[in-house]
């Protein structure tokens, strides 16, 4: 198995506030890793360092052999598909324009762009005509599916998602969870996903990293979290999420 991400003694400070204490983390290719933890635990910060949106205060982040920095080349960024919290669709572009923005910049012709978009629309189960709409005209679930399409457009090696289902109503969320897992299984890509919802984490992950106050508390297969909690905090965190436990696991 090859390695997707290697983080060595990576930390992040914002002024006097330490968001992330020095930590090591390796993500193998093909893994479906979920970063979980309460608000302010540093999980989104960790993801932003992996995408290169922020620069680590110490240590280094590598993607394969390449060093990830905030000002790294655009080419490297395009090997990572990132779905920002809230979707981040550009409101002045139609769904299709959002999806094909980078491909167009890279000089793909119209035919190729449309073919790829159509293929992705099928994958994320979105009717083609929805692609003509502007983000404001999309439902929450549709907007998330378009964001996912945009992240997948250039067929990246890794998919990084920051709370992709955060702001959805329960029914839409449930539908999208089902579809998303199916998509992950079909694509067989490395996935790093941030959520605060344990049920969701258990549903998607083959590895869960639980974080608290900028440190990794537990790192391992989902079952370990329930059966072999690392400390009292993990037990409390698991207990606190009653409802999702009622859902069937993977």
């Amino acid at each position, binding site marked *: 198995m090859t390695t997707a991400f290697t983080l060595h003694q990576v930390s992040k400070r914002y002024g006097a506030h330490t968001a992330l204490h020095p930590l090591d983390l390796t993500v193998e290719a093909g893994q479906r890793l979920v970063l979980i933890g309460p608000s302010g635990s540093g999980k989104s910060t960790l993801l*932003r360092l992996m*995408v*290169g*949106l922020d620069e680590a205060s110490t240590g280094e982040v590598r993607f394969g052999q390449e060093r990830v920095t905030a000002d790294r080349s*655009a*080419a*490297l*960024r*395009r090997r*990572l598909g*990132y779905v*920002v*919290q*809230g*979707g*981040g*669709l*550009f*409101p*002045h*572009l*139609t769904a299709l324009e959002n999806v094909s*923005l*980078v491909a167009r*910049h890279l000089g793909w012709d119209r035919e190729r762009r449309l073919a790829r978009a159509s293929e992705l629309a099928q994958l994320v189960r979105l009717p083609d005509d929805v692609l003509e709409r*502007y*983000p*404001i*005209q999309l439902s929450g679930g549709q907007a998330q599916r378009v964001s996912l399409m*945009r992240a997948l457009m250039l067929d990246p090696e890794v998919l990084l998602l920051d709370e992709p289902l955060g702001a959805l109503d329960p029914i839409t969320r449930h539908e999208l969870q089902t579809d998303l897992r199916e998509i992950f299984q079909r694509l067989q890509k490395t996935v790093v996903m941030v959520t605060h919802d344990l049920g969701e984490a258990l549903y998607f992950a083959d590895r869960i990293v639980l974080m608290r106050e900028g440190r990794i508390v537990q790192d391992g297969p989902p079952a370990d979290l329930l059966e072999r909690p690392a400390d009292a905090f993990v037990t409390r965190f698991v207990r606190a999420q009653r409802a999702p436990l009622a859902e069937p696991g993977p």
Partner: protein
Amino acid sequence: MSRRMWFLAGALLCANTAHADERPIVVGSKQFTESVILGELAVQKAQLAGVHAEHRRALGGTRILWEALVRGDIDAYPEYTGTILQELLPGTPPGSLETALAKNGVAVTPPLGFNNTYAIGMMPEVADRLGIRTISDLRRHPELTFGFANEFLDRADGWRSLKARYRLPQTNVRGLDHDLAYRALASGQIAATDLYSTDAEIRAHGLKVLEDDLHHFPRYDAVLVYRAVLKERAPEAVAAWNQLAGRIDEGAMIAMNAKAKLDHVPEGRVASEFIANTFGEKTGFVATSRAHRLWMRAKEHLALVAISLGAAILIGIPLGLWAAKRRQAGRVILAAVGVIQTVPSLALLVFMIPLLGIGTWPAIAALFLYSLLPIVRNTQQGITGIAGELRDSARALGLPAWTTLGRIELPLASPAILAGIKTSAVINVGTATLGALIGAGGFGQPILTGIRLADVGLILEGAVPAAVLALIVQALFDLLERIVVPRGLRLDRGRA
């Protein structure tokens, strides 16, 4: 979309075509009726002599005209010997006036024939009631309110030296427009004002002219001053002006002032009638139709607005982008354009005079500076106001900076930028009326003349089109918004 913005800016710039052909002789005049009439006389005499001449009327006070003459913005203007000796070249003995002027490259015609000295005037009833006959008598009434023309307040031979000479105790003194002073006097708001002894109003209102018992005011013989180079460049014009020497006596000047000011005869016609009666020459003067005047002024006004606004867009948007991208530079830029905005527009126009002289370009420069703030600020705010998740998305997608700017940031900021341009444009249309103060023409011209002649019709002839133009500009920008602002953003606002 950024391309559309550039196109817009370009179109605005091209809307004006300022063509400079062979430069005519430019005669200026000060901002009161007599000076405008004399300016007309000078222009028409020059034209009769076959010289291409034009009149920049009512440009401002003595300093503005003098500096414009020395700089060469204008070639000639009517002046008074007293003003030259007291104010422009103080310390010059009356005998060496011509030598002193020559040092500045300026020549002068012989006196035109009348002495328009300063005087202090009151309503006769008030003067009689208080027993005031001479300026010295004013000493006994320290409670009186005086209203003086702003120029009289500032001049070396004006209020300060008058006050010192007569030891006048009054402190309640305010500055106001010379033409408004008569109305203030008639309504009792002020007790005394400065007069020119050839003012038509002295007769019209039956004003009491106080005797200058200490002989404070010198002689103010009317002359034309002109750039000495005209003797070679346009000797015919100089010869024509010299013919005016001694031909206008006080009675003739008062009559001409009365015609223009009280009977609302255009100054050009007053001058042309005088030339016909005095020299038997028929000038080509024709009063322009109102429609023609409106059209000419609209063109001048639009040129002022279009060029200054176009330049402000071309400079303001990049400045705003810079301010958005570099916080340190941004603070400096916004502070600088903010400071410019705090300068009253009138002052900003006048600041331009020593730098750029008078006329269209200094006015454009002032309007340009004045138009910057809304555009720079809105561009900066439009860009920095873009949501963090959209910035992150653009960066994570791996779009280069210029593509992000053109495809993401500028379109997202376009409603704010356009709103800034609209604000600038509407303010600009209004402020451009002040351009007439420094000879830039436009709709401000009839407003100024209207104030001078107390002619409400004339004021409206400038004010109404200026207001209509502002409304049209506003409507045009609303229309433009539909073209420039991306559809997705307009839907957004429709829903909000």
